[in-house]
């Protein structure tokens, strides 16, 4: 590997360690779950390599176990993963100018990869595109490895891992704190938490994401309108 790639790897790898812990654990749990439902290594690899979306894959176990219609799976997939639309819009500027790995980087934009990439200000000495690639690819590898290991070894693991999946919650809390420190305007962060908490209470934990997204969009749109109006007034 040349210097640029190594430097980008050295920069990217430490940032993926929390995801490594979370993905190896959740991936292993997923692999075990698939095995329990009668799906072997090829099914697990196909899901973890091609779908690569944690929550949908967990729900997908039941889809496969009861052999639902693919159309139903497709619609559920759109709904469960609708939050990815927000990730795309958030990193639009960051990823638009990229050339080499753009398609893969977009394909691999999971919750966790997004959370690392969106808050990262990569120093100029590092090749940005390679740093993004390492972060995305390492996370993908952790997930595939975890699910394969879980599927093969399922049943042999008896270390008490209860609570280990909290690593991913911790990762999001850390990023939330970082963003809070670096932003002057805390309203978007508060709007996100507020809408989500209200929607969990109103719609239940299984159906809150779409209404919460709609609420967030509505509030941000109102603020944008207000901002535009202010700008127009100060000009005129």
């Amino acid at each position, binding site marked *: 590997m040349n210097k640029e790639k190594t430097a980008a790897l050295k920069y990217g790898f430490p940032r993926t360690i929390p995801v490594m812990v979370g993905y190896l654990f959740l991936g292993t749990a997923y692999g075990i779950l698939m095995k329990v439902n009668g799906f072997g290594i090829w099914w697990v690899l196909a899901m973890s390599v091609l779908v690569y979306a944690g929550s949908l894959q967990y729900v997908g176990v039941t889809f496969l176990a009861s052999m639902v219609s693919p159309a139903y*799976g497709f619609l559920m997939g759109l709904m469960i993963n609708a939050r990815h639309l927000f990730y795309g819009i958030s990193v639009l500027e960051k990823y638009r100018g990229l050339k080499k790995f753009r398609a893969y980087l977009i394909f691999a934009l999971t919750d966790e990869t997004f959370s690392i990439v969106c808050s990262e200000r990569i120093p100029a000495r590092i090749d940005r595109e390679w740093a993004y690639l390492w972060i995305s690819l390492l996370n993908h590898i952790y997930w595939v490895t975890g699910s394969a290991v879980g599927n093969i070894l399922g049943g042999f693991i008896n270390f008490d891992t209860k609570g280990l999946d909290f690593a991913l919650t911790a990762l999001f809390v850390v990023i939330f704190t970082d963003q809070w420190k670096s932003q002057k305007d805390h309203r978007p*962060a508060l709007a*996100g938490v507020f809408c989500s908490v209200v929607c969990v209470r109103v719609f239940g934990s299984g159906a809150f994401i779409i209404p919460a997204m709609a609420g967030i969009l509505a509030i941000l749109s109102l603020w944008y309108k207000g901002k535009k109006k202010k700008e127009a007034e100060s000009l005129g």
Partner: protein
Amino acid sequence: MDKTAIIRGALIVAALAAATMITRFLPFLMFPRGKKIPGYVEYLGKTLPCATIGLLVVYCLKDVDVWSGSHGLPELIAVAVIVVLHWWKGSSLLSIGVGTAVYMVLVQTVFV
């Protein structure tokens, strides 16, 4: 597994992969390189990251029941530890490591 089950299963995997890809690629297809991003979308691009991380935090804690069991205390304590530690030291790995360890100890030994 018989042949029809394998085909059906493969179709389900393909459907899930297609749905996921659509949600990830759509924003980039709507605003390809060279096309000017409207002011509104640019504004969303700046404000959505914070709001979305807020949503993800709630998403992780959505099944915590404040009214029964451990009343969400392990989660509350662990989140508080992470925020305080992170505010103070600013090291992501330290905050995540200690926070997760605290949570594991709490759910395995204190709140069983």
